[in-house]
């Protein structure tokens, strides 16, 4: 057999002579869901340029929302950021209420704030503890997961689901919070501050964590 036919890899013109390295990073995702490919041009360890492909993952929510009734869009807003679905749900409800001119009862506003604060805390637990995992500390992640779990139990008590909550309705909530929900809330409020303090002690002044995070990740707007 002739040697030319065995040549499968076609190198681009001039690629042998050039001084930089081209590296295919991915397709992978910083948080393992979906795909994210970077073709980067390296000069030693310095990235000279990068070509990013964020993946073909557009879900056309805008298009779907053109047709369906308002209440059918709420489950889609869960999926926009599934670490804090309730906040997205509330964002949608409040937008619709603004458009419809609906005035919600005071109690609804308070319950919404409670549920959104819980969502914010659980979301920040995830992102902060995942930074820990990515910089080499698994302990903190597993430790705070218990309290994310408790928050999810509160969601479950209120709306019946844990991750993609579809919580609340346009104009209020589907039902009042149960007594169990409030007792779980009390438990969370009592125990969580102490846990957060321990979690912070584990990270913020930790030398390894500091060396791996300080001075990285600035993005210009």
């Amino acid at each position: 057999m002739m040697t030319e036919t065995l040549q499968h890899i076609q190198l681009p013109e001039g690629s042998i002579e050039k001084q930089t390295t081209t590296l295919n990073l991915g397709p992978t995702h910083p948080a393992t869901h979906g795909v994210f490919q970077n073709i980067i041009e390296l000069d030693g360890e310095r990235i000279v340029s990068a070509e990013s492909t964020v993946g073909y993952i557009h879900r056309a929510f805008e298009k779907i929302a053109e047709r369906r009734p308002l209440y059918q869009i709420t489950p889609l807003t869960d999926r926009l950021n599934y670490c804090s679905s309730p906040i997205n749900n509330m964002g949608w409800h409040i937008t619709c209420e603004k458009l419809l001119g609906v005035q919600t009862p005071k109690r609804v506003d308070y319950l919404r704030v409670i549920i959104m604060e819980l969502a914010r805390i659980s979301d920040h637990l995830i992102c902060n503890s995942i930074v820990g995992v990515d910089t080499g500390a698994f302990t903190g992640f597993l430790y705070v997961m218990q309290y994310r779990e408790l928050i999810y139990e509160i969601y479950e008590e209120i709306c019946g689901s844990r991750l993609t909550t579809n919580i609340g309705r346009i104009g209020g909530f589907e039902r009042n919070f149960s007594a169990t929900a409030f007792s779980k809330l009390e438990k969370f409020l009592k125990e969580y501050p102490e846990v957060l303090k321990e979690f912070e002690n584990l990270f913020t002044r930790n030398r390894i964590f500091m060396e791996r995070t300080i001075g990285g990740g600035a993005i210009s707007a």
Partner: protein
Amino acid sequence: MALDNAYIQQQLTSRFGEDFFIFSESYGMLTAEFAKESNLKVLQFLYDEPSLSFRFLTDLCAVHNPDLEGKELSVVYHLHNLSENLRLRLKIYTSIQDPHVFTATRLFSSANWMERETYDFYGVIFTGHPNLKRVLNVDEMDYFPLRKEYPLEDQTRIDKDDEMFGRG
């Protein structure tokens, strides 16, 4: 002095003239519509003027209005003044036959991908953009999927026999 919609309106009219803008205020947010050729001048003025300093581009997207003759596509800029926490909406119209708009990437780095997305889904061509190609769809795609000529399938249709997806 706290920044408010009336002040922005007054600043913009004194800089660009009476008939330059069409103002409207919906749900507390000021919207200024103007000719598409001046988009960079307006953005630059809002960025530079110290009493306004809209230095953050929150969102850039397009809207397709097939019924508006000659103004089928509109490009919408959402600006945010972070120190006063005030938002402003700018709107420019362009025809679908000539969907050319100047790029805002020189002013806002964040406009880069948002303009690519707007091009990808609505076909607005941003003149001067450093890398105007599709960002979320495949490069081979030859249409702009969020335009109104591609409606969502009617969910009540019964002519489709599809066991796997619960129809038929």
